[in-house]
């Protein structure tokens, strides 16, 4: 059940993206902040359960099993913000994919309330959700094999994660512009609470949401992005 690939060592074999560039969309910063908070809270929850159980069994065992397939043996040592930046840098997916990916993860946790997003599964959840969002939204997107390389998991594992993800979501991929907008506001509010006022770049973003226009350019021949990074 535990993810087979050692995500950290896979990643370290590849060139590390240069630290956050000025072009990094704010949505990444906001999103990683929100997710880091969520993960910290849930990790603590599991930890507290551990203490209560006093070593008899792991607190993790009390957590729902729905996300088990996303669990790694240990938490990768790449931070969430670095991981998101990496996904953005190499896959050049549209920023809205990160918001929609977040919508998906949020739906997942609501559908399976006993399953927690924790440091053991957050990276795999992120790469899968962003990839699925990109498949839904983006005109041009990389295939699973490429996302696997960027995300530091094997192609086969990512396919398995994708499949699991689609079914956990009950194939509910549609994100209306209204829902999209409300998630943007939510993320911005989260940021405000922390004193920093930032707005998500919606101009780029809302263009790519389905129900309205899911893609701005779809598979025109000239639009093939540079292949690979190796």
């Amino acid at each position: 059940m535990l993810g087979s690939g050692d995500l950290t060592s896979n990643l370290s074999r590849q060139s590390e993206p240069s630290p956050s560039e000025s072009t990094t969309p704010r949505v990444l910063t906001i999103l990683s902040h929100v997710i880091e908070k969520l993960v910290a809270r849930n990790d603590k929850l599991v930890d507290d359960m551990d203490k209560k159980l006093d070593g008899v069994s792991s607190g993790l065992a009390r957590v729902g099993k729905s996300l088990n397939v996303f669990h790694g043996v240990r938490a990768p040592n790449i931070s969430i913000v670095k991981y998101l930046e990496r996904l953005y840098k190499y896959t050049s997916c549209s920023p809205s994919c990160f918001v929609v990916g977040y919508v998906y993860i949020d739906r997942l946790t609501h559908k399976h309330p006993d399953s927690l997003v924790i440091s053991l599964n957050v990276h795999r959840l992120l790469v899968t959700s962003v990839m699925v969002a990109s498949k839904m939204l983006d005109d041009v997107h990389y295939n699973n094999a490429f996302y696997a390389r960027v995300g530091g998991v094997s192609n086969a594992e990512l396919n398995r994660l994708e499949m699991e993800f689609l079914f956990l979501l009950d194939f509910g991929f549609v994100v209306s512009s209204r829902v999209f907008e409300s998630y943007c506001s939510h993320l911005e509010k989260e940021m405000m609470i922390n004193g920093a006022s930032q707005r998500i770049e919606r101009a780029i973003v809302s263009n790519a949401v389905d129900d309205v226009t899911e893609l701005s350019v779809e598979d025109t021949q000239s639009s093939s992005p540079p292949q690979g990074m190796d």
Partner: protein
Amino acid sequence: MAIAAPGQLNLNESPSWGSRSVDCFEKLEQIGEGTYGQVYMAREIKTGEIVALKKIRMDNEREGFPITAIREIKILKKLHHENVINLKEIVTSPGPERDEQGRPDGNKYKGGIYMVFEYMDHDLTGLADRPGMRFSVPQIKCYMRQLLTGLHYCHVNQVLHRDIKGSNLLIDNEGNLKLADFGLARSFSNDHNANLTNRVITLWYRPPELLLGTTKYGPAVDMWSVGCIFAELLHGKPIFPGKDEPEQLNKIFELCGAPDEFNWPGVSKIPWYNNLKPTRPMKRRLREVFRHFDRNALELLERMLTLDPSERISAKDALDAEYFWTDPLPCNPKSLPKYEASHEFQTKKKRQQQRQHEENAKRQKLQHQQQHGRLPPGQQSGQAHPQMRSGPNQPLHGSQPPVAAGPSHHYGKPRGPAGGPGRYPPSGTSGGYNHPNRGGQGSSGYGSGPYPPQGRAPPYGSSSMPGAPPHASGGGSGYGVGGPNYPQGGPPYGGSGAGRGSNMMGGNRNQQYGWQQ
């Protein structure tokens, strides 16, 4: 999948998609076969309901879950209309793999993923191609009205179908017609500012603006296809059977006239206009060619086959056309005759056996005549090659098009994973189509499909492959109901070059079809 605690019932939760196994269904028979997998007619064990199971091909590891399937599922989850096929659920199959203890190995998707559709007995192409089939005027009106109603529903929900053709219009024995196959469909915005791919819609049904390379388009593209189908129903055979894009455009211009800034303002700005514009003046001959059509039918057809997409009639306006409101009125679907369900996949098998029998007899005779002159191996093995699925019931007729598939039933239409081979044909010479998402399939599927050129389903068109069957779905489409109108006595399809003729209009479909006045 939330599981109720012991002792509690999960009463208010409907089973979520994918929570059920394909074992809930009893497969009755295979009704389709394609490059993407199989289609089965099946019975839900609990309810006895008959459904169609379409397997999603998962064998392209690099692509993961096929994007066409993702988009089809997404769109069909959103659309609910009596003239749009109903996707009931997604089921999984754990597959035969077991671990050492003989338990299932825990990968519940290994055996495949199936989309469960309501079962439909026919598709329009297959039905029209039945021997002796003759649609009555009220029947044509009835089908056309349902087609337009379903399409109007899609368009108001901002979905472009982008692959309207006879084999994607499924018909049940209650006379209901439903749009199917949304693998190419997408949402659109009303401002038409988005750039969309122009490599959609099966060639014969593709509108001139796409052939001229526009990337900004809207619902009018589907309406052109509807016009082609309408004319085909009245005329008895496809009206624009081009074998590649330039020929397709030419056929359109020959009937609808050459476009210019006068009849289609802005046409000269469309990307490929200068390369593809007609070399000689051509005037519109639609009314002349189809002068035997009913006046109101011709009026409606005129407005559907309008070159300028902004002037083309919308689905909604078409429904208001005189044609549907004058005698004879469209009939009630329920009053339509019921036809014996026929799936090409099965009829083919029968015909294949019959053909093989005939061929064997012929070969024996031949061998008897020329003791030393054996047939060339290609010809020999070609006769009943198992891959040549579209063959047996569609022996090539000299006048048939050099295209791949027999009329394909929707379910059976092979569909490569992302976009499918042939859907996005390379426009250039080599790998051509460079979409990172589809390129992989594109290059493998297109033209290298295992199926020989035959049958009458239109190609997706590729100017880079003249003569070769550009439609990899080819015989694989299998499940079409059609084809039987081609005479059994046609030349054996293994014969080289047979069926290369491009003069589709000389086909013999009209012999059975009946010309509607």
